[in-house]
């Protein structure tokens, strides 16, 4: 039936969990008052008239962090199977992971020196 046993529960749970926000928002929709005056729908800006929108270009530094994140997140994903099977790999597995992590540390040092991890 299912090749991966236990995952039918995951599918079921996805369905059950999806109903939580739907139920919450529907219940609120049925109960809450509606028809407010348009003033309430203006953008909040500490009581001032909002100047301009917020859909503008923003600083590149967020992009740099995202880029470094992708590298290290993929690294940890690669390390998971290694950690699970480590008891069978022995010393060779340790040395191989050491080389792998060393390359990434070089990458981290490079990003650090280049200022990709600086906020200001």
């Amino acid at each position, binding site marked *: 039936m299912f090749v*991966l046993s*236990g*995952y*039918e*529960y*995951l599918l*079921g*749970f*996805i369905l*059950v*969990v*999806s109903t*939580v*926000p*739907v139920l919450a*928002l529907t*219940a*609120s929709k049925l*109960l*809450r*008052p*509606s028809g*407010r005056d*348009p003033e*309430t*729908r*203006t*953008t*909040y*800006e500490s009581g001032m008239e*909002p100047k301009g*929108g*917020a*859909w503008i270009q*923003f600083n590149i530094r*967020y992009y740099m*962090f*995202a880029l*470094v*994140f992708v590298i*290290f*997140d993929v690294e*940890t994903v690669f*390390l*998971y199977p290694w*950690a*699970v*099977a*480590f*008891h069978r790999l022995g010393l060779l597995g*340790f040395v191989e*992971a*050491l080389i792998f*992590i060393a390359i*990434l*540390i070089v990458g*981290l040092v490079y990003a*650090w020196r280049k200022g990709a*991890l600086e*906020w200001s």
Partner: protein
Amino acid sequence: MTPGIDLQQRFIETLRDLGLPQGVAKVAWLPLPMILIIIGATLGVLVTVWLERKISAAAQQRIGPEFAGPLGILQAVADGLKLVFKADIVPAKADPWLFTLAPVIVVFPAFLSYLIVPFGQNLLISNVGIGIFLWISLSSIAPIGLMMAGYSSNNKYSLLGGLRAVAQSISYEVPLALAVLAVVMMSNSLSTIDIVEQQSGYGILGWNVWRQPIGLILFWIAALAETERLPFDLPEAEEELVAGYQTEYSGMKFGLFYVASYVNLVLSALLASILYFGGWDFPIPLTVVSGWLSINETGPIFQIVVASLGITMTLLKAYFFVFLAILLRWTVPRVRIDQLLDLGWKFLLPIGLVNLLLTAGLKLAFPFAFGG
């Protein structure tokens, strides 16, 4: 170790005795643990909100909520009900679809992660093979919702808060994954059941906290940052950004963000207790206790008692971490965004890598003590 109580088996057998076919009995079982867990998670949020208010009050020498129910227990329920009745204000300039979708995307992975939280040998929804990795991957979904909330509001505070939230949660995800990785290496499995099993047998001395002290600190700092708790609540730093990405949210949509943050806090506390404090395991090995009292370990009453004590143990350990998080909130000042990112990338990440390699090295040197 006894296999422990197996509710699923008992339920299916009972239904089959009533004359239902096996397939129907299995399908009838399917939604029960899920609904139970969802209700439990929601109750956990209410209790945590109440605890947060009471402990905060105690930390500031106030009384806190006291009128709604005895000791103000019903205050959280009253707050929740209030949110249901609140008007739903969508800013005229916002993108209404993304604005509605964002809280849903944030709350969804928080609840879904409960799939792998065990309260006993067989007391979890499903022992899927990828176990703890499911939580790591699900927690990557929430930043998309935060970004969506920040950007769709079309408000400058929201945008800044959303960007900060994403930068923060992706920065601390890597140290978090590395801390979990060291535990996974010791138990040779991703399954949360196996992780607890590997720690049991020696009581309090067998728990991972003794073998992974650095990992625990790493995990807890990263978990606090992931759940945006003080001292890492920069995305909603009220002195700077009003309420961050939640600024424009009101009513039930705000309620969903609120619930998601507390579900995440309880979830992180539960996982900290499972990964480092032996989950449902007792401080004194159970076989010793039953030997003292000379009880038959396979008796049904004994099993029920053990199962309920196991659930209590898990919750006690988890709420210890919740208590710690609440006390930290009133003890440590908020960090600056550049300090936050420096801490994540330049301190926790290298420490996480070193901790992982140290665990691997110690496992090679002392295979028995580090899980074979």
